[in-house]
């Protein structure tokens, strides 16, 4: 009995544990007050080497973004970007990005999780994923120096019109 207690004690005093949740926690900005409707925002996953983005669903009750992206070619490391966006006048407006990566070089599982880092980018957004290349116009469609998210939620500014 005593050794078991010792083991439990050692385990409890160890380093912080990494807990993998189902889905990606919803970023805080989607809960902020906004002059426009952020509930219309969508989420999608862009994966390096794949042209088409994979749509994800936002569950506001569970505060998560979740989904699955099938038919991803393995054999290399894949960079991914989780993008939050809205559509204005049929034009896609990227509000923010979160990035992550997964090594599929020797994967033997046909279902693989990819960890999305909590860091949120609203200005220095990635255009090309591999090689990684920042494209300022991606998160600032009109190129006026103010990112889409700020302009979208601003009372008077238009994110598609440079002012």
């Amino acid at each position, binding site marked *: 009995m005593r050794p078991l207690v010792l083991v439990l004690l050692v385990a409890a005093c160890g380093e912080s544990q990494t807990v993998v*949740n189902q889905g990606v*926690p919803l970023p805080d900005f989607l809960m902020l007050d906004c002059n426009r409707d952020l509930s219309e925002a969508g989420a999608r*996953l862009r994966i390096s080497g794949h042209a088409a983005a994979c749509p*994800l669903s936002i569950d506001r009750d569970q505060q998560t973004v979740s989904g699955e992206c099938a038919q991803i070619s393995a054999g290399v490391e894949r960079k991914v970007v989780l993008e939050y966006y809205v559509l204005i006048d049929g034009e896609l407006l990227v509000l923010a990005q979160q990035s992550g990566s997964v090594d599929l070089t020797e*994967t*033997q599982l046909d279902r693989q*999780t990819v960890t999305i880092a909590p860091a949120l980018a609203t200005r220095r957004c990635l255009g090309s994923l591999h090689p990684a290349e920042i494209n300022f116009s991606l998160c600032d469609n009109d190129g006026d120096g103010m990112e889409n998210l700020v302009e979208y939620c601003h009372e008077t500014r238009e994110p598609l019109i440079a002012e």
Partner: protein
Amino acid sequence: MVILAAILWAAPAADVNPPRVGHEPPKAADRQGNWRLWFEVRDESQIFGAALYFATDPGAWQTIEPEQVAPGWLEAVVPATAGLRYFFEVFDEHGNGPTRVGSSEVPFVLQAPAGELSAVRPWDAPKVIVAEPVIRPWWLKRPPAKLVYAALGTVALSGVIYGSYNLLRDRPVSKVTLIPVGKDSQP
């Protein structure tokens, strides 16, 4: 007519050919100081009346009957003197002949003997020379069947094991489904 044909058919074929004689004059005498004259005589029938006529110079012709020393071979032994003249004749039992080698007019004439006659006789069976067995290097020899079967078995077993391993081992997949998740750190 039919009876005559039957008799002719039943009668043995008549030998009408004279004996054939081969002869090579000697150059050496034997140890006893004699010429040994050998005659190879071939005929389909028994030979008859073989005779060697020889004469020393000067002298009258003498006759001796050669002895058969081997099937088809006759030998006559005469003192080895230089200038010996001789010829040989023979018939077969049907009277075919005579076949002569040399003649009284043109006989063989022997010079003084040179050297000693070899012990080898022309009617002796040729000496069989046994060739040395060819020693093949080991890399050209066929390996033992047991070794070949063992090697083949080993290769086959290795192939089965390798194939089974490849069938059963976990291999990387070519397509995956990505599931994005967040990472939360808890103390």
